């Protein structure tokens, strides 16, 4: 504090420790740290000690970060799920009635159920050959594809401080857009990859349009986006029903039930391996694109600024209303791809009906939450939820465990994720340390400053030599 006002020469690094600035902030922030009795003195004397500390910090960061909490939440959810499996199992119920050993019955019920879940979603070791063994994993990734895309869509709105509950409607629009282009252009003679591309882009544009409408209503009228998107879900759903029930619009002329004509082969996503199609690769590209958009582009900078503090964003010259519309358009496009994937997926032949969204529009919200709204997080969360979708049905079919238990486990995961302190307490994970993060920052800055200093010094030399 003593030299707060002496203008420091521009190249001299600021004192790295003992800063008054941190004082009052730490005072407020660390009440919890204090409660857990963390942050003992860490004197850094020798280089070895410094190295040691760095490892400890690294370990601590991983443990205290979101990843550890997510992992803990998954384990907890499976534990609670085990209880549900035990109490819904008929052998266990019989054992409780005195007919056999309770513990062995419970144990085998749990093992059977999770064994079936894994065989249905990751690796089937009972398969006759490699193709049969790997089939569950390809199914998981196939289910994950639309979840990842739609999850990214919801995550983008979260980053901008908005809630998109309209995944269902935007998926339906994506399906309408791509479906219409798929069978509408069937006889136009457009060759395979081009027709597919038109359908995918058409689906994303249709989703973007439906998303942007929600954004526009919010920006123009101040209507709350949660209400608007929920209502637009109904509008989209009933519009689809109308289209499906009206001959000449989207109903298959050869049929009487509300279903579209079959999707032609020229518009189908090509298979990648077994049940998996190239849509998964596209979803990986979307993950990368979203990461770039949010972290490297000016648009993403505006999204995040509006999301964190719309007033400051406005003062900084960012058009909040326009940003809202763009965010919803981007979100709708991503979710629109999920809709297009469901229509163009080669594993579901024929046309589609009014259940085309398959609940993915809502699962996308939980995927985005579980993934912490980060694109990479959404990727893993989407794969996890894809595994539940792939493994839930075999679990019921083979060992008689209700498929609902898979759904309950998914929901429990999200609930535990939403309560990090609970997960931390159960697994005794350390609190995220502000000090550790600050120290890392300090090192980084020191480097940048040294670099800047060197540049300035070089410039000065040049000036002098001239």
């Amino acid at each position, binding site marked *: *504090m003593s030299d*707060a*006002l002496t203008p420091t020469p521009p190249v001299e690094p600021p004192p790295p420790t003992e800063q*008054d600035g941190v004082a009052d902030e730490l*005072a407020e922030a660390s009440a919890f740290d204090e409660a857990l009795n963390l942050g003992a003195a860490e004197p850094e004397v020798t280089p070895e000690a410094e190295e040691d500390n760095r490892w400890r910090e690294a370990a601590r960061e991983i443990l205290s970060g979101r990843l550890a909490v997510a992992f803990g939440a998954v384990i907890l959810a499976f534990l609670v799920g085990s209880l549900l499996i035990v109490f819904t199992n008929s052998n266990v119920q019989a054992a409780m009635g005195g007919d056999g050993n309770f513990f062995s019955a419970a144990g085998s019920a749990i093992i059977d159920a999770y064994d079936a879940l894994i065989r249905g979603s990751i690796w089937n070791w009972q398969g006759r050959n490699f193709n049969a063994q790997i089939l569950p994993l390809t199914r998981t990734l196939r289910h994950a594809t639309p979840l990842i895309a739609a999850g990214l869509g919801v995550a983008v709105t979260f980053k901008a401080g908005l809630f998109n509950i309209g995944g269902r409607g935007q998926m339906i629009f994506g399906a309408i857009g791509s479906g219409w282009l798929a069978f509408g252009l069937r006889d136009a003679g457009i060759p395979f990859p081009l027709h597919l591309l038109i359908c995918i882009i058409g689906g994303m544009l249709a989703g973007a349009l439906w998303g942007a409408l929600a954004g526009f209503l919010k920006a123009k009228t101040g209507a709350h986006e949660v209400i608007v998107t929920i209502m637009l879900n109904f509008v989209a759903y009933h519009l689809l029903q109308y289209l499906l029930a009206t001959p000449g619009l989207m109903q298959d002329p050869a049929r009487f039930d509300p279903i579209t004509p079959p999707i032609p082969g020229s518009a189908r996503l090509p298979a990648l391996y077994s049940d998996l199609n190239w849509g998964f690769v596209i979803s990986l590209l979307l993950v990368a694109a979203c990461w770039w958009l949010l972290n490297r*582009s000016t648009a993403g900078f505006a999204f995040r600024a509006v999301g*964190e503090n719309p007033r400051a964003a406005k003062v*900084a010259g960012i058009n909040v209303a326009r940003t809202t519309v763009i965010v919803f358009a981007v979100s709708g496009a991503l979710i629109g791809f999920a809709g297009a994937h469901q229509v163009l997926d080669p594993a579901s032949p024929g046309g589609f009906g009014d259940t085309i969204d398959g609940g993915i529009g809502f699962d996308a919200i939980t995927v985005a939450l579980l993934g912490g709204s980060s694109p990479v997080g959404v990727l893993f969360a989407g794969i996890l939820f894809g595994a539940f979708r792939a493994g839930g049905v075999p679990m019921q079919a083979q060992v008689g465990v209700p498929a609902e238990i898979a759904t309950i486990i998914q929901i429990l995961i999200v609930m535990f994720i939403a309560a990090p302190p609970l997960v931390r307490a159960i697994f005794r994970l350390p609190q995220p340390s502000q000090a550790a993060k600050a120290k890392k920052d300090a090192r980084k800055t020191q480097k940048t400053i040294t670099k*800047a200093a060197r540049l300035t010094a070089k410039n000065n030399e040049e000036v002098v030599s001239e």
Partner: protein
Amino acid sequence: MRLELRGITKRFGTFVANDAIDLVVESGQIHCILGENGAGKSTLMNCLYGLYRAEEGEILLDGVPQRFAGPGDAMAAGIGMVHQHFMLVPVFTVAENVMLGNENTLGGGLLDMAAARTRVTEIGDQLGFHVDPDTRIEDLPVGVQQRVEIIKVLSRDAQVLVFDEPTSVLTPQETDELMAILKQLRNEGKAIIFISHKLREVRELADKITVIRRGKVVGEALPTSTNAELASMMVGRDVILTVTKDAPKITSNRLEVTDLVVTADDGAVLVDKVSFTVKGGEVLCVAGVDGNGQSELANALLGLEGQVTGSIVLNGAELTGKNPRKMLDAGIGFIPADRNEDGLVGSFTIAENLMLNRSNGLPFAKGGVLQLGFRDQFAAEKIVEYDVRTEGINQEVSRLSGGNAQKVIVAREMSKDLSLLVAAQPTRGVDVGSIEFIHKRIIEERDAGIPVIVVSTELDEVVGLADRIMVMYRGAAVGIVPADTPRDILGLMMAGIAPENQEGAPA
């Protein structure tokens, strides 16, 4: 009641916020605790009030050691606190707020409203002011809300009263009234702890002054000490309290504002036909009690207000009705009054905040792509140049102290080519050291030949910075006067009385 703190030590991780602090407060005394922001004053009071638990040390009341697990215990022991940000329920009435947490009930769980009303009136009468117990808090001016807080504390028979920066939200008149109340409470035998970094108030009120710096008691001072003595104790070196500046060198730059009217959505006139000209090279200070249209005037200059008529002409270019982006591109530097709400994105890093309003083009972005290398180098240079005390350019600004956060805004706004600088409350909640720095930077901009507008409710700041002073009252300009206008005239102007109508004032 005699309050004694012995060796209070409070650590946050490796950071020692309070280091073996000893303090004795006698009844019938106003004990001022003076220190910069972040010196540890609030932490100490939170330890006393049971919000924090100190690692070491003890709290004694009349020689009896106390253990407070929470504010409830502290209140029960006779310690009351008036927080800087009031802890009142806006939609409750005065009486309801006073009884909240301490309700008297009649039979059947009914609230004894009559008793609460009587209590409010009694305490008010005792202190010589009247507060209507049935008014809702949100309908009361800030000064009166503070009195409700005082009544609330007194209604629980507090013997030790803690006031945490109580004057930061008050007008000069309200401050004077509060001081009178504090003196009366002292004379009634209460022990009062008054926390502040404002030297003038501390000197006027204190019976005893304890100065805290970096978590330690650096000494006691007498109320007869000079401002300079107190300031240097507080900061730890000599501080120049007055702004040094040369006579203005007027340039050809001009901001001309004519008949500016800002209307709220509900039709209320917030700025009422204000006209003024600021020449390049001079500082026009806009003074007035908070809430008299100054903020709206400043906001209108950046295009943040919706309904604006009149004209804003900067160097011949008409700017009325332009959006903030266009205003910024026209070279307006803007320091908003509420830095956390309007000036910074708390969860963004320092580097990101330094480019917050420049993400639209070069040099921070090229073709829609952020130039991270440039951003980081820029930030690294600016935190050195503007002396931002931080652990790094990637530190979140929400973790900076007020003064350092404000320096981030100052660095952002002043490191581009400006044609006009509008600074609203540039030093609100900022420590003494940073105030000096920010004032110097503002004067540097003035000396660079651009028009500068400073909106401030701090009279010291207004008088120190201004070449001319415009006083606003209820949205209108009461008058524009030279910087050496006596303070009593300015004070009356702030109450809406133009200098020509003031009796006995020099014409």
